[in-house]
């Protein structure tokens, strides 16, 4: 299947979404869709255009056995499935921590209990599977989890993923902070306006976060030097955990 020509890719995506792509062509296209970002974008564009046509379809509430059946099939995804879904970190943290957070248990403590602690560079999570060493934070507001933060231990970037949208408001930016038990908060950088992406650090995560016990986000003015202290209260905060 040749998807290098944009007009052909667009046509295949349109036929996939409208439903007329079938048989081997449909299966080949689905394989490409799983791993190629340009194919994903083309399909999403067509889903945005066509899917609203289906909004007027409705049926009576399904019978109770449908929900019972769904519940029976919910289980933690296997590492392979999580990897394939692209959301391994969210799922990884989610499954182990959601319960602990609800019970008010500190994230770091919970992680120590469920993760095998190894002195090696990488942590084994299953036979033959490893995770990179990272600092991770799980920032919440009063309504619950909002932002997932991860930073390679020896890298100089922080990855941000939103699980719920958050905005700084017009003319303001979201500033990420590290909090310490024994010294003032340290500004780490501005979270991209979309709330998702990377924050560049001035030093390695290990140098900046080794003694941090929490990560937090405040609303600040853009431009100018990094603030010395948050200008208001933190709108999001959560424990800073080490994954190794």
């Amino acid at each position, binding site marked *: 299947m040749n998807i290098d020509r944009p007009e052909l890719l667009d046509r295949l995506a349109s036929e996939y979404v409208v439903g007329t792509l079938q048989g081997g062509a449909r299966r080949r296209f689905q394989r490409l869709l799983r791993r190629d970002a340009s194919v994903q974008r083309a399909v999403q564009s067509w889903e*945005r255009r066509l899917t609203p046509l289906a909004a007027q379809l409705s049926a009576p509430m399904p019978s109770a056995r449908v929900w019972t059946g769904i519940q029976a099939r919910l289980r933690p995804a296997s590492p392979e499935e999580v990897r394939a879904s692209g959301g391994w970190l969210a799922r990884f943290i*989610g499954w182990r921590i959601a319960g602990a957070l609800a019970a008010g248990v500190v994230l770091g403590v919970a992680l120590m209990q469920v993760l095998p602690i190894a002195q090696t560079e990488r942590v084994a999570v299953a036979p033959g599977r490893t995770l990179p060493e990272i600092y991770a934070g799980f920032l919440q507001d009063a309504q619950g989890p909002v932002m997932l933060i991860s930073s390679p231990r020896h890298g100089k970037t922080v990855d941000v993923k939103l699980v719920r949208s958050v905005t700084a408001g017009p003319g303001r930016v979201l500033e990420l902070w590290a909090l310490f038990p024994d010294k003032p908060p340290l500004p780490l950088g501005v979270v991209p306006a979309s709330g998702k992406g990377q924050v560049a650090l001035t030093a390695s995560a290990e140098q900046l976060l080794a003694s941090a016990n929490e990560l937090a986000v405040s609303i600040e003015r853009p431009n100018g030097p990094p603030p010395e202290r948050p200008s208001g209260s933190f709108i999001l905060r959560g424990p800073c955990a080490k994954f190794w």
Partner: protein
Amino acid sequence: MTSDAEGSARLKRWIGRAALGDQAAFQQLYQATARCLLGIVLRLLRDPAWAEEVLQEVYVAVWRSAPAYAVERSQPMTWLMAIARNKALDALRSTSAERAALVQPAAFDEDGETALPEAVDESPSPLLQLLEGAQAARVKGCMQGLEAAQRQAIALAFYDGLTHAELASHLRQPLGTVKAWIRRGLERLKKCMDVGLEETAR
């Protein structure tokens, strides 16, 4: 009365929490969306028992892919409906050989003038409220702008899941003609909708 934006934000919140393993939030998501997604699946499969089986697969897929849902890339209802359509089409295609002889599309009316189901504008479903009404109105408007044959072929494929071959036999037209209707219809639809987008942005 819940506004579209509030409904959408609520769906996003539930998906976000489901991504973290929150089954209660996932159940709320199910309660709010099951009727709409079953409507989509049932229209394609036309067998209530089969549709409910596939609906289970839809929500298991929603649960598993919730961590990968990207807020900035698609509206939550579009994302959910696309998962439902894909699961139903997969089910339909896996047995399309056996059912080829049984095709009786619901959307086809006598004069063949339009295969679009009538919107229930007087009492919009809660799901219709959750979806951005503007987007639905725009695609429907652009559908009406197509030639009748193109519109009918696209609607039969989209709502009823007819393949090219089924369309050709159903509409008593050569395969190539039907394929061209779909292809040109989709091209025109895209142009029409992209113009609409620019006007909205202005």
